[in-house]
């Protein structure tokens, strides 16, 4: 089974991770612009970060036969540094049309401050102007209210819910997200977000429509195989393969493919220039294979469950 991880901060990950993801069947991933742990204090460092995810990281992924896409945006934490935020907003339009940019994101609320609200709205307007999808980061704290409010604001700005992926959902938020017509992302992230056993139960209850599974792997304790392990656990526990394929591949492609920047062709039949220069994989050979994460020496493959 081909997999897509539509939320993976590869700039914080090693080549081992790329290799493991490729082995597990990941053919494409999306790297959202985010807070790198250390706050940036210059607009220039932010600009170079955005250049990294449209440039270097895309190349790095290609060496492992994984197609790399990204989203650009000003994250909610750094939106609170007004001087930085103003500067980044001036640069964003120049990055939004770069090759492989599939959305504006991840944007939204952290502490739900006035500044977060201001830059969230400005970026929603930018996405609307450029007809790009939006990846919304929902807050860890005061989550339920923050999630509802994020959707209210998207609607206020006239965005089509079908163009908006509300990420980091849980059991408490999923019903409303789906009912209002948004895509519901789930980050399989140990301890703080969603576990994959819980995820399987959500799939049992809600089916696969508009649900998207991602790993959100980053600089924290997280698992770049979140999507692959969830796919395997779901199959083991009797979720229909069509549902698993939808939530671990097809839905992400459909949602972010609306950017016009991501298509199955990219990995099944890449352009000649990419095959010569940027894309080392031959994923056609991998197509149709079951998620493969059980190499005996692989420490991380021993446990399928992500709490």
């Amino acid at each position, binding site marked *: 089974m081909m997999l897509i991880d539509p939320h993976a901060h590869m700039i914080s990950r090693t080549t081992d991770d790329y290799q493991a993801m490729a082995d597990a069947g990941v053919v494409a991933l999306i790297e959202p612009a985010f807070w790198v742990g250390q706050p940036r204090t210059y607009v220039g460092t932010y600009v170079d970060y*955005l*250049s990294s995810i449209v440039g270097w990281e895309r190349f790095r992924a290609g060496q492992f036969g994984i197609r790399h896409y990204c989203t650009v945006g000003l994250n909610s934490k750094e939106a609170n540094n007004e001087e930085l935020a103003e500067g980044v907003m001036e640069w964003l*339009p120049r990055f939004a049309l770069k090759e492989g940019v599939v959305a504006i994101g991840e944007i939204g609320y952290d502490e739900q401050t006035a500044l977060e609200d201001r830059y969230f709205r400005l970026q929603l307007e930018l996405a609307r102007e450029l007809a790009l999808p939006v990846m919304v980061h929902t807050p860890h704290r005061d989550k339920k209210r923050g999630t509802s409010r994020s959707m209210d604001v998207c609607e206020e700005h006239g965005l089509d819910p079908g163009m908006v992926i509300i990420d980091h959902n849980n059991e408490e938020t999923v019903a409303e997200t789906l009912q209002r017509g948004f895509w519901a992302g789930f980050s399989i992230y140990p301890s703080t977000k969603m576990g994959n056993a819980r995820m399987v139960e959500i799939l049992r209850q809600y089916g696969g429509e508009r649900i998207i599974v991602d790993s959100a792997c980053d600089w924290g304790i997280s698992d770049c195989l979140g999507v692959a392990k969830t796919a395997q656990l779901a199959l083991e526990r009797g979720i229909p393969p069509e549902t698993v394929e939808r939530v671990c591949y097809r839905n992400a492609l459909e949602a972010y493919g609306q950017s016009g920047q991501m298509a199955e062709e990219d990995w099944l039949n890449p352009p000649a220039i990419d095959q010569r220069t940027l894309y080392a994989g031959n994923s056609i050979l991998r197509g149709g294979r079951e998620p493969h994460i059980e190499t005996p020496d692989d420490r991380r493959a021993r446990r399928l469950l992500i709490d």
Partner: protein
Amino acid sequence: MTRPEELLRRWVLDQAGPEAGWAAQSLDTLAKSGQARDLYIFMGLAPRRLGKADLRLGPDDLAAAETARPGWSPAGWSIDGAARVLALLIFPTQRPFAELFKDLRRTADVAELIALYRGLPLYPEPESLDFEVGEGLRSNIRAVFEAIAHDTPYPRDHFDDHRWNHMVLKALFVDTRLTPILGLRERANPELARILVDYAEERLAAGRPVPEDLWIPLSPFREDPKVASLLRRAGQEEALS
């Protein structure tokens, strides 16, 4: 003689299909406006509107390119890359060209980097791009390095010996071929020969193969005892004759 920008325009428009109208109009606007914003947008839209297919070029086209700029080979260029270089060539600006180039290079995605550097033999004020070329050569993205080094007269015509030598050495390190580097024989020099002998000895000591095209820049120095001894040890006696 047809100028490179006329050739590029013809190739891009001929292959643009239903987007030919958009491309022609955008390029005309760009040539008049001189607005950086228009240039950024065109650079972004080029692959979206035109796709990323290789330019379809016949022997006549390649001959015309060679006449327009000796050494320039657009074989293997993509349509969006050609459109991007063309945009840069026709964009009227009061700024020094190197500044405009830097502005685009700083925020470039991978495909843009490749296109920007492939255009090197065609730009005005080539000497002023020295710093920009250095930045590109330091890249570990092999395709970017190759855009500067392969099938282009720019390094042969503008690099000093130090930069030339390190480009050749880096080509070996990033595992790319030397043969597409124009001027490999003409620019051979004793310092490069010394560097390459050291490199080859390191490889042999580690039990690793020595790339065959390394002998091209070494062959003018085959009389040198160190080079001769190395060639013998590597089983390359025929390069001695």
